[in-house]
């Protein structure tokens, strides 16, 4: 019940963003709002088993969203660095690849997903496989320096941020 309600609210926010600029009640017309309420209730009923599958509501805390927005700064910086790194490697063709393993010790599904996607978008690393039980990540590293790397070397301090956001 609670999960259906929260899913419906999330869907309603997306619907409002899609139909912005149609009328006078703030930015929306009354017909759009009524239709949006109905449609998002339907979407909440059909999508309730997926969005909060583990009955885990810790992402509803607004402080975590503020941390998430603050996280975008270092993330975009690391992403720009990654692209310059890849540019260097495309032009010179100098690679030294390998697959290494790190243990970030993150518990939640959302946290490990965020870390995996952040790693994929940042310098020289690509998440290949995930151990379902221990949440260990296997990472393809384009320029292997050590065979048993520290977490800091690969993740740019992302796990600290993600622990604050998602745990």
């Amino acid at each position, binding site marked *: 019940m609670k999960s259906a309600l929260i899913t419906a609210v999330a869907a309603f926010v997306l619907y409002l*963003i*899609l139909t*912005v*600029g149609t009328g006078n009640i703030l930015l929306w017309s009354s017909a759009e709002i009524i239709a949006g309420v109905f449609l998002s209730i339907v979407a909440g009923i059909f999508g309730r088993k997926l969005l909060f599958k583990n009955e885990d509501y810790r992402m509803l805390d607004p402080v975590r969203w503020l941390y998430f927005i603050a996280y975008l700064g270092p993330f975009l910086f690391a*992403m*720009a660095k*990654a*692209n310059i790194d*890849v*540019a260097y*490697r*495309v032009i010179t*063709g100098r*690679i*030294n*690849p*390998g*697959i*290494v*393993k790190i243990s970030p010790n993150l518990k939640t599904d959302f946290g490990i997903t965020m870390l*995996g*996607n952040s790693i*994929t*978008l940042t310098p*020289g690393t*690509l*998440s*290949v*496989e995930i*151990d*379902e039980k221990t949440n260990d990540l*296997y990472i*393809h590293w*384009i320029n*292997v320096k050590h*065979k048993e790397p520290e977490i800091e070397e690969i993740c740019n301090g992302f796990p600290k941020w993600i622990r604050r956001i998602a745990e």
Partner: protein
Amino acid sequence: MIDTVIYIFLAVGVFFNGLGSFGLIRFPDVYTRLHASTKCTTFGSIFTSLGVITYGFYHWHVDSASYGVLAIHAFIALLALVITNPTGAHAIARAAHRSGVYPKRAVVDKLKEKGDLSD
């Protein structure tokens, strides 16, 4: 002034998109190609879309309200792109490793040493 900003965004985007596509030809195996294509094309598409979003917001201020809708819808498309693209890359890399394509010239392969991971 605002035109210059848009030109810079578009130029950066085109440069990184070209780099990603060129790396697709140049690199030797699947994983390094994924590095080039995923990172560079996502970054380049972010910048070209930012050009469009800046254009939309600027003309929203100047001309008419429909340009604001253009900017917002472009932002939603960009958000969906940023969420789905690394996930697709992860799925391809995992499938490639499981189907027996191993990285060429690899110094270390911890995943192969560990053997098959059961779900």
